[in-house]
């Protein structure tokens, strides 16, 4: 079986996804814009509300990550028979649990365990 694989590889030189110039350029221009906007928002102090700025730059970061995934990492539901996407989705679930769980638990630990220090420490 492995001999057969080696053999077929010699013929199918196209091992990975096919990339195009326009795909890379679309991804690059989009990510330049999506990087420039948050830096501008923070450096020029556009919004007076901190929370609004945080929500917008986090949203732009998420969009930019999706752009990189599609145009640079060539993610789709078909590559490697869908296993790429399945492992990505599973990892995203774990990442969400790690991040949201840690922040949630530790925030409440701070609030409940150190009531006197909250005003001073934050």
């Amino acid at each position: 079986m492995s001999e057969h694989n080696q053999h077929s590889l010699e013929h199918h030189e196209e091992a990975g996804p096919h990339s195009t110039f326009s795909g890379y350029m679309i991804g690059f221009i989009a990510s330049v814009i999506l990087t420039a906007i948050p830096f501008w928002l923070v450096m020029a102090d556009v919004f007076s509300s901190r929370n609004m700025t945080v929500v917008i730059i986090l949203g732009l970061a998420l969009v930019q990550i999706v752009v990189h995934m599609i145009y640079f990492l060539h993610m789709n539901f078909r590559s490697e028979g869908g296993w790429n996407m399945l492992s990505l989705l599973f990892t995203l679930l774990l990442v969400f649990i790690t991040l949201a769980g840690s922040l949630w638990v530790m925030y409440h630990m701070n609030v409940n365990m150190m009531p006197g220090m909250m005003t001073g420490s934050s």
Partner: protein
Amino acid sequence: MENSIAVPVSQPANFEFLVREEEHVANGTLLGFWIYLMSDCLIFAALFATYGVLSQSYAGGPTGADLFDLPLVALNTSFLLVSSITYGFAMLQMQQGKLSGTMLWLAITGVLGVGFLGLELYEFYHLIHVGAGPQTSAFLSSFFALVGTHGLHVLFGILWLVTLLVQLRMYGLNVANRRRLFCLSMFWHFLDVVWIGVFTIVYLMGSLS
């Protein structure tokens, strides 16, 4: 994943059959490397979670707003972003079978990576010099752990890239080297994706306080 079909030896060879499933991948390296990247992603998730928990624990020391030099970070970000597209150009040259073009764009990518790493080391040196080293506060410990781990990944990416340049010079664009180029491409773009999280959560949000 049942791909094999038992065929009686006595039957004539000219028959047709249908495999009702996805074609089996010929080589699992790219999928395996992707799964490695996903596990790497979990390391960064843990580091981001640590940073998120400790990012307000200044211990009376300097805050992100005091320390971070956003124009420098913007320059660093642009290095990494441009290196992503130059790596893309290297892949396009590879697809056309042009060895010298592939090596040229790879080398440019490597130079941009070295520039990124140099600026980051300068920043770390500056921070430690002004007394904001990792031992100063929990905030700075988690900052150095997260950004330092990303920097180490870039360093190993550059070492890999140089090794690959030597391999390309010696053996050309053969099947093994193409596979390696695909793997390094995923690694490099993945580091760029992690950096999006770093500059947004660490530098930009840190400067807002």
